[in-house]
């Protein structure tokens, strides 16, 4: 009987409440289920609810903090957008560079970081931006080198800037354009971009001014390879001599050609190519100048792209800590908007005089970079995937495979073109590429491979950032504006 009482006294929907207050309230009309003591859910439910609520809470807190931080920085710079601007004037403009991260097929990640974390503050401050993306390694290097070469040519008077077809009221004089450019700024997202940028600067200011068409040069190099040669004397127009790639010597050879049965020897021989399109520039003009025109101040935005299975913990941490990225990006944008700059800190001068510091030369990351701006965001390089280091060997392997398969395809297309044999059933469905198409395909592949190789040479982690002593006076970096306390002190 006592056990029955114990069971029936457990709270259920039909048990009347026990204490006095509850009975009174029950008589007043409050439903009985409201008057019972609530009990905790079961252990499993407790575990589930605590885990989900923790995770959700972290996420929600993080996103709310992100919004708050972004709004705070936007409010700090909004006063610039409220200023009146004449109807024919233009706002301040910055150029944004973002290169491809090594190992990432998605080359847009750097620019997306800029758009998500830095751009909102620029938009709030009414600053215009030009986004320049690097789709492959070395794209930005080439682009900057070309721009600098055109600039040098204009400075020396070799090229005239073409007059605009339609003069418009917003045309600006060169001095005004130059002043706007210096007032603007450069934004560099990530260490690969920084390396590519410096390499492009160095190339642009050190290389020759002659107009060099990369495709033409590559075509000339490739034309001298005997890859597309064959038994009959069908020589390309550009080659000065034709070699025979086939082991069988043939009687039909042009008398002007130098007979050489081995391709390797011919490839190593350096041939003076007919430079019909090259311009002759005086030696005095072609030497690199000793001072370079100052560049607009640079904003170095640290950016790390996490890739791969092993970096998933970092990705999870970043997912719940996006406020750190928002703060970093907004802080960088604020620096750009407030326009406090300092000169660029290059490598220390003593480094060139004392090269025999053995302890430092063993490190991959040399200490000269830790105190100078050249070591910007060097920690990001530790996050490169290990597969990126094998990029040159991958390119070499692809090249080998392609050239091994090429003679067969070439023979097939030539036989079909000459009518030696008919198309098989498979070939009727997918016609094999003609010789012209094969040449074009080879050209495209070779240009892509050489571009990748050059670009990787710039970006690889064991190579330090390029530097030239002439840059020391021409570069500036954006820094935080001095806070009010330090202003009062100083």
């Amino acid at each position: 009987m006592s056990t029955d009482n114990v069971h029936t006294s457990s709270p259920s929907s039909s048990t009347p409440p026990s204490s006095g207050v509850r009975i009174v309230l029950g008589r007043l009309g409050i439903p009985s289920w409201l008057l019972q003591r609530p009990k905790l859910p079961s252990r499993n439910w407790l575990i589930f609810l605590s885990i989900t609520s923790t995770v959700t809470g972290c996420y929600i807190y993080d996103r709310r903090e992100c919004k708050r931080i972004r709004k705070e920085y936007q409010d700090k710079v909004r006063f610039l957008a409220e200023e009146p601007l004449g109807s024919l004037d233009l706002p301040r403009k910055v150029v944004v560079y973002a290169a491809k991260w090594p190992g990432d097929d998605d080359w847009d990640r750097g620019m997306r970081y800029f758009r998500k974390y830095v751009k909102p503050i620029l938009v709030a401050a009414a600053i215009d931006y030009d986004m320049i993306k690097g789709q492959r390694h070395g794209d930005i290097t080439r682009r900057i080198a070309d721009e600098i070469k055109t600039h040098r040519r204009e400075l020396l008077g070799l090229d005239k800037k073409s007059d605009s077809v339609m003069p418009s009221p917003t045309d600006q004089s060169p001095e005004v354009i130059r002043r706007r450019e210096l007032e603007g700024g450069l934004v560099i997202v990530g260490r690969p971009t920084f390396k590519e940028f410096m390499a492009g600067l160095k190339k642009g200011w050190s290389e020759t001014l002659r107009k060099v068409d990369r495709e033409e040069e590559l075509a000339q190099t490739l034309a001298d390879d005997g890859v597309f040669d064959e038994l009959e004397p069908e020589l390309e127009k550009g080659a000065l001599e034709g070699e025979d790639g086939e082991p069988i010597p043939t009687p039909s050879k042009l008398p002007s050609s130098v007979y050489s049965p081995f391709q390797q020897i011919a490839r190593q021989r350096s041939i003076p190519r007919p430079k019909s399109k090259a311009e002759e520039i005086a030696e005095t003009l072609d030497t690199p100048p000793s001072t370079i025109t100052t560049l607009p101040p640079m904003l170095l935005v640290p950016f790390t792209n996490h890739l791969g299975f092993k970096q998933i913990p970092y990705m999870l941490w970043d997912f719940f800590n996006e406020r750190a990225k928002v703060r970093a990006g907004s802080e960088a944008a604020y620096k750009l908007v407030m326009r406090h700059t300092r000169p660029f800190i290059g490598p220390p001068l003593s480094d060139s005089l004392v090269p025999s510091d053995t302890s430092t030369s063993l490190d991959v990351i040399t200490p000269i970079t830790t105190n100078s701006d050249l070591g910007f965001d060097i920690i990001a390089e530790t996050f490169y995937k290990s597969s990126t280091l094998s990029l040159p060997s991958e390119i070499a392997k692809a090249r080998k495979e392609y050239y091994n398969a090429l003679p067969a395809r070439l023979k097939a297309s030539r036989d079909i073109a000459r009518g030696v044999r008919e198309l098989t059933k498979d070939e009727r469905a997918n016609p094999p590429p003609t010789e012209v198409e094969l040449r074009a395909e080879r050209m495209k592949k070779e240009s892509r491979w050489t571009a990748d190789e050059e670009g990787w040479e710039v970006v690889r982690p064991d190579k330090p950032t390029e530097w030239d002593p002439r840059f020391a006076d021409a570069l500036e970096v954006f820094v935080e504006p001095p806070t009010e306390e330090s202003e009062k002190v100083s």
Partner: protein
Amino acid sequence: MDFSTLNTAEQAHMSRVIEKKQMQDFMRMYSRLVDRCFNACCNDFTSKALSSKEEQCVLNCTDKFLKHSERVGARFAEQNADMMSSQS
């Protein structure tokens, strides 16, 4: 618009046509300006006279409208020039 290919009679005709179009454009812009500023500024018809507030509003409205139109024209001319230079 190059006029070197046309003789004098056609040139005169073309200039008349252009002048007429410009006049129409001007009238159109004026009517849009009046419509816009009236809708924006004058909402209280309890009195016939224009109050000083409305007067100030009309001044600001015309200023902004004309400046806006000038800026849009400048951007349009820039885009046009870019297109022309990329084509030629």
